[in-house]
C-alpha cells in the first residue's frame, strides 16, 4: 500500500503539485492514522497534507479521483457481477434455450452492468457469440492455469493486486504516448499469465466433455472482462503519468520558440508558464532587506536595546523607512509585427506585481497612450486584448510616439525610473526624433530597448536601431520566453 501512495505522490508531482520529501513522510503518517478504508476521509486528510495552495488543491482533487478510482470501480463491478451471476443462475434454471441470455449478461460484467453494455462492446463479440455453441447448463470443469483459477474464483481483489504487480513488472508508468496503450495492455496480460490461459481455453474448446467446453466459454468471457479491466488500468496510468511528460516536452519547446510563432491555442499554456516563471523570479527577489540604515531614530527601541549596556546608547535603531518605490515605464509597440511580443512582456511585468515596482505601461503604433489604468481595472488577459484592440491599428510612427511621451509624462521620469521600450524600431522612413530619446535617456536611471528581431536585421530597411541605439543603456534581442525571463530577472536586480 505504501507503494500506492508513493506512486500517487509521483503522479501529483507530474501534475505540478510541489511535494517535498517531508510532506511525503507526513502523508504516510496521515495515512497510517486514517487508513484506506474511508475514501472521503482519506481524501480530506491527504488534501491537508500534500497540496499547499488553492490551485494545487484543485489539481489534487482531480488527481485523487483519477488515481483512487480503482477501489470504487471495483466495488461497483462487484455489485454488477453479483447481479449478472444471478442472471446466469436464472438462465440455467430455465434450461438450455436461455444459454445465450446468460451469455449476454455475462458480457455485461466488464461494464459495471450498464444496460448498453452489449452494444458498446463492439462487433467482435457478436462474431464470437455466433461461433459459440449452445452448451446448456451444468457443472463446469476445474480450471488448471493459475490465472484461470483466479478468474473462476472471481476474486477481484486478488486480480487487481496481480494487475498492479504486473503493471509494475512491465513498467507501465513509463508509458509515453497513447499509441502504446495496446502494447502495455498486452504486456500486462501476458505478465499475468495470458498464454497459459489461452492455451487452456483452446484446449477446453476442443475437448469432448461438455463441462470442459463450458469452462472454455466461461474462461474466455472472463478473460475478455479482464482485458477491459487492464485496458482501463493502462488508460489511467497513461493519464496520470504520461500526460504531463508530454506537457513538459511541449513547455520546454514553448520556452524556446519565437514568440511570434506561437499559435493562438497555446496562449493559455504560455500564460501558465509565464506565471510560473514570474513566481520563481518573485520569490528570488522578494528577499531583500527591509530595514534601511537611515531615516528617523527609533527612540523607544534604541533605549530598550541599549539598556543592557547600562543605558549607554551605542547600538542605534532606526525607524525603517521605505523609500518610495522606483518606477518602471513600459512602452510597447503594439503594431501588427510586434504585438505578440508586447502581449507576453506585459503579461510578464504584471505577473510580477508583488516584487515589481509600480509599472506604468504605454502602448502605441502611431499615437501613444497610457494603458496603466486598463490593467488596474481589468483582468490581465482582458486588459491585454483590449490594449491590442484599441491601439494596434495604424502604421508605426516612433517619432510621433516619442513626441507623445514627451508631452504627457517626460517630466515624471526621474532618476529612479527605468524605461523599457519594446519595438522593432521600424519607422516607415519617418522622422526618428532620437533627440527625444536622448532626453529620456538623460533623465532616467536606465533605458532598455528590447528588439524582437535578430540583431543582424536591426539596421536593414526602415529600421532605425542605429539612431536609437546610442541613447539606450542596454539594447537586447528578445524573442522568446527564455529571453524575456532573463531580461526581467536582470531588470528586477536593477530596479530594486
Amino acid at each position, binding site marked *: 500500500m505504501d507503494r500506492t501512495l508513493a506512486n500517487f505522490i509521483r503522479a501529483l508531482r507530474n501534475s505540478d503539485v510541489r511535494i517535498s520529501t517531508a510532506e511525503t513522510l507526513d502523508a504516510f503518517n496521515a495515512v497510517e*492514522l486514517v487508513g484506506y478504508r474511508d475514501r472521503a476521509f482519506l481524501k480530506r486528510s491527504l*488534501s491537508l497534507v500534500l497540496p*499547499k495552495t488553492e490551485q494545487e488543491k484543485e489539481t489534487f482533487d482531480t488527481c485523487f479521483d483519477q488515481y483512487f478510482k480503482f477501489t470504487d470501480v471495483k466495488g461497483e463491478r462487484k455489485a454488477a457481477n453479483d447481479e449478472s451471476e444471478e442472471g446466469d443462475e436464472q438462465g440455467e434454471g430455465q434450461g438450455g434455450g436461455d444459454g445465450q441470455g446468460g451469455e449476454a449478461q455475462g458480457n455485461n460484467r466488464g461494464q459495471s452492468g450498464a444496460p448498453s453494455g452489449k452494444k458498446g462492446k463492439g462487433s467482435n463479440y457478436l462474431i464470437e457469440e455466433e461461433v459459440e455453441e449452445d452448451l446448456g447448463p451444468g457443472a463446469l470443469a476445474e480450471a488448471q492455469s493459475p490465472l484461470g483459477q483466479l478468474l473462476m474464483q472471481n476474486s477481484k481483489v486478488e486480480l487487481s493486486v496481480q494487475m498492479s504487480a504486473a503493471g509494475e513488472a512491465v513498467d507501465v508508468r513509463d508509458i509515453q504516448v497513447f499509441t502504446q496503450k495496446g502494447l502495455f495492455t498486452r504486456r500486462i496480460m501476458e505478465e499475468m499469465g495470458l498464454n497459459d490461459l489461452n492455451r487452456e481455453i483452446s484446449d477446453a474448446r476442443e475437448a469432448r466433455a461438455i463441462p470442459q467446453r463450458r469452462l472454455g466459454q466461461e474462461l474466455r468471457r472472463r478473460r475478455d472482462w479482464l482485458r477491459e479491466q487492464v485496458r482501463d488500468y493502462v488508460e489511467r496510468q497513461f493519464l496520470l503519468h504520461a500526460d504531463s511528460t508530454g506537457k513538459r516536452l511541449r513547455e520546454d519547446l514553448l520556452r524556446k520558440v519565437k514568440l511570434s510563432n506561437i499559435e493562438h491555442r497555446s496562449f493559455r499554456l504560455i500564460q501558465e508558464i509565464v506565471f510560473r516563471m514570474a513566481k520563481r523570479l518573485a520569490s528570488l527577489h*522578494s528577499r531583500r532587506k*527591509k530595514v534601511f540604515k537611515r531615516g528617523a531614530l527609533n527612540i523607544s527601541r534604541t533605549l530598550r536595546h541599549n*539598556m543592557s549596556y*547600562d543605558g549607554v546608547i551605542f547600538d542605534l535603531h532606526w525607524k525603517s523607512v521605505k523609500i518610495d518605490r522606483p518606477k518602471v515605464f513600459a512602452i510597447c509597440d503594439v503594431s501588427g509585427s510586434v504585438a505578440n511580443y508586447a502581449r507576453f512582456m506585459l503579461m510578464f511585468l504584471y505577473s510580477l506585481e508583488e516584487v515589481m515596482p509600480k509599472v506604468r505601461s504605454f502602448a502605441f503604433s502611431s499615437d501613444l497612450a497610457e494603458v496603466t489604468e486598463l490593467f488596474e481595472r481589468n483582468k490581465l488577459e482582458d486588459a491585454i486584448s483590449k490594449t491590442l484592440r484599441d491601439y494596434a491599428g495604424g502604421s508605426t510612427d516612433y517619432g510621433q510616439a516619442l513626441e507623445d511621451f514627451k508631452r504627457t509624462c517626460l517630466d515624471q521620469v526621474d532618476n529612479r525610473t527605468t524605461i523599457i521600450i519594446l519595438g522593432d524600431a521600424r519607422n516607415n522612413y519617418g522622422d526618428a526624433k532620437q533627440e527625444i530619446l536622448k532626453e529620456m535617456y538623460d533623465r532616467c536611471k536606465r533605458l532598455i530597448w528590447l528588439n524582437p528581431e535578430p540583431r543582424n536585421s536591426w539596421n536593414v530597411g526602415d529600421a532605425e536601431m542605429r539612431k536609437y541605439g546610442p541613447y539606450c543603456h542596454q539594447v537586447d534581442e528578445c524573442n522568446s520566453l527564455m529571453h524575456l525571463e532573463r531580461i526581467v530577472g536582470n531588470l528586477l536586480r536593477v530596479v530594486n
Partner: protein
Amino acid sequence: MDALKANFEKHNYICSDQIATAVYLSFHLSKPILIEGPPGVGKTELAKTAAAMFELPLIRLQCYEGLDESKAIYEWKYGKQLLYTQVLKETLDEVLQGAKGFTESVRRLHEFGDIFFSEEFLEPRPLLKALKEPNGCVLLIDEVDKSDHEFESLLLEMLSDYQVSIPEIGTVKAKTKPPMVFLTSNNTREISDALKRRCLHLYIPFPDVELEQRIIHARVPEIPPELRRQLVAFIHELRDLDLKKVPAISETIDWARTLLLLHTESLDPQLVRDTLNVILKFQDDIENVDAEISTITSKVLKG
C-alpha cells in the same frame, strides 16, 4: 470525527468535514495548521473554538509588519537587570571577598555564573509562553502574511520541533505536550514554501447555503427560519456579483443580528437598502448593488 464535529457545534462553531479532519490530523500528528481563505470565514474563530473545546488556554500572537523576535519569542527584562545591578553594587565587595587584582576578581565573578541572563530575567513573549504552558495550549499566530519574511523564518524552528533557541540559556522545548498551533493567513502575500511544508494546509472557502444557514442558526438562534433562509440566499446572490469585497460569514451574522433588532419578518427592498451598509463595506459596492436590490430580493423571496 463525528464526535469532534458535534463538539465544535456545542461551542457554536459549525464546521465542515474538511475542517474537522484538519483539527483531527493536527491533533494526532502534532502538526501546525495553516489556515487560508477569504476574510471573515472563521479562521481565527476556529482556533478560539478549538481552545475552548480542548479546554486549553489560548495564546494569541497578532502579526504585523516589523514584528520581531523580541516581541514574539522573548526579551530580557532590562529594567530589572539594571535595577539589580544598581542594588547589588553595594554588595560587590562582599562578593569579591577582597580579591586582589583583576584576574582573581574576574575568576570569582565567574563562579556566580550568568545569573543576569537566567530565566528570572527573561520576559516570555507569546511563542515562548506557549512552550512553557504545562498542559499544552492552543497557539494562534494570526495573519501571518502581515509579518515580514524574516519573521517567517523565525517561526520555522518553532513549528517543526516545538522549540526555540535562546543564545544565553539554550534551547527551550515544549514542556509536556506541544501546543496546537494555528496560523491564519489572508493571502495578501504568498507564504514561503518552507513554512508551508511544515504545516497542514487548510483552505476554508465560503460555505454553501445549507452550511451557512446552520452557522446562522448556531450564532443567532432567535432569528425565524424563513428570514434566515432569505438572508442567506440574499448573501449568496451577492457573492456571485462582481464586488470589491464580498460579504463574509461574519457580515451575514451581523446582518442577521441587525434584522433581528429591527424586528423584521421578511426581507423587502427598502429594508435591504437601509441596512446594506452592514454587509457591504465599500461605497462603490453599495452603489453597484443598489440597482439590483429589487431583483435579488424578489428572487430570494420566491425561494
